[in-house]
């Protein structure tokens, strides 16, 4: 399919972006937990046109044995884009970009997983981008946190992620693919709320130091919002079963 044409303007005179959003608005986000049967944990995210599925296996015996660590679990992460996920078909062979993103995504999750509890095992996170529309590594991290929690793997907390960027000189939240392509900067950020640490940070483009600070603040605020959505999505599954099943007072839940 031919690439969509470059839009005339990314922001109109009223400050409205091409998809109707304001500068500080997130795209609609949908989160679902536990949708795959075979994976130990799974989650699905839609953010704008991004559609990303994450499956987690583990902790399981480390294969090959030589990658195992004696005192903790090894976290393995693969970020992969489906060939049909982008405008121009992507070659299925692993690209350098996918390798880099697999690394930075793994590094964004490492500090929250309580890996000390499972020496000599691996915890595997598979992020499959089914459709990509800008900000897929951040959406992938948001869903990966949920998938890890869904697998029952002990964690300090969930990692939330969101990107900001600069379009037509303005700092904007959650860039779409067109905005990233034709904009002036892209800054993906992942954040853990309790430890208050930024665990993923990349930038390409040009930003003044002031623009960086402003963008970072905007991204962290969005991460807070997304974190709330993550907690809701995790609990929702169990609350729905609870509501449907409960009909009368019973003895307390047995531990």
């Amino acid at each position, binding site marked *: 399919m031919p690439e969509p044409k470059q839009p005339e303007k990314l922001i109109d005179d009223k400050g409205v972006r091409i998809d109707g959003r304001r500068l500080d608005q997130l795209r609609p986000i949908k989160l679902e937990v536990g949708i795959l049967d075979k994976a130990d*944990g799974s989650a699905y995210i839609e953010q704008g046109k991004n559609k990303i599925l994450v499956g987690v296996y583990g902790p399981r015996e480390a294969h090959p044995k030589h990658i195992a660590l004696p005192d903790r679990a090894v976290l393995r992460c693969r970020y992969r884009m489906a060939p049909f996920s982008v405008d121009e078909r992507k070659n299925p062979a692993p690209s350098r970009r996918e390798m880099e993103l697999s690394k930075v995504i793994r590094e964004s999750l490492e500090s929250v997983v*309580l890996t000390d509890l499972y020496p000599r095992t691996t915890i595997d996170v598979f992020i499959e981008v089914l459709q990509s529309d800008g900000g897929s590594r951040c959406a992938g991290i948001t869903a990966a946190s949920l998938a890890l929690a869904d697998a029952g793997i*002990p964690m300090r907390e969930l990692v939330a992620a969101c990107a900001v960027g600069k379009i037509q000189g303005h700092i904007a939240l959650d860039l779409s693919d067109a905005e990233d392509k034709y904009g002036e900067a892209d800054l993906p950020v992942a954040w853990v709320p309790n430890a208050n640490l930024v665990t993923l940070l990349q930038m390409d483009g040009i930003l003044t130091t002031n623009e960086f600070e402003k963008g970072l603040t905007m991204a962290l605020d969005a991460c807070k919002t997304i974190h709330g959505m993550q907690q809701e999505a995790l609990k929702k599954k169990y609350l729905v079963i609870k509501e449907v099943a409960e009909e009368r*007072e019973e003895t307390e839940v047995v531990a």
Partner: protein
Amino acid sequence: MVIVAEPKQVVAPGELLAEGDHLLGDNSFKVGTKIFSACIGIFEVDGNRVTVVPLKGGYFPRVGDLVGGRIVDVGLSGWTVDIRAPYEAMLPASETPGPRGPRRRDLSESFDVGDMVLSQVLAFDRTRDPLLTVKGPGLGKISTGRVVEISAAKIPRLIGRKGSMISMLKRETGCQITVGQNGVVMVWGKSPENERVAVEAIYMVEREAHTRGLTDRIREMIAKSNVVGEVARTQAA
């Protein structure tokens, strides 16, 4: 000492449970004076101890646990067993009953790849894989009945307080049920229909473990199925 989260409610990883000098139960951890949940589960407060009972999670071996496992390899001096844990388990030939256990070339005659075995965890620590034994009453190869695999996190609910849930299931379905701590449950009924109902009940416990009124709903489901229950023979389990 302040309890922050609501007891008996679902909590998420990283959620603040309490502040102060509480004892840390399973799946909780402390940062400074704050206590957080490490997983998705039900928050329980028992006196001074805060715990999160996980809603999901695999099996982590403990010495003494009864586990159902599948033979995946026959070696020179024992078997490798998949017990649905992060580690493969070993069952040495020396841990089988009999004067000196089976001779080397007889190993696959005792247990072959694919066989289901009920065993007990003899040893396990951070530096080595779990060690199993089948020396003990009721342990050994499972050749009949049905095997159900559910989340190990739901086994406590399947057993129930003082065995109340599992006793009710055995009685109402007329089945013998042996529960492995690793989520492997073995069912023998006097008819395939009895077994089917028991299996359905077990899956229902897994799905609705965190809800109230579960015991009654299961009893109702079994009653609707019209299987004939009976008082199960007592068995060492």
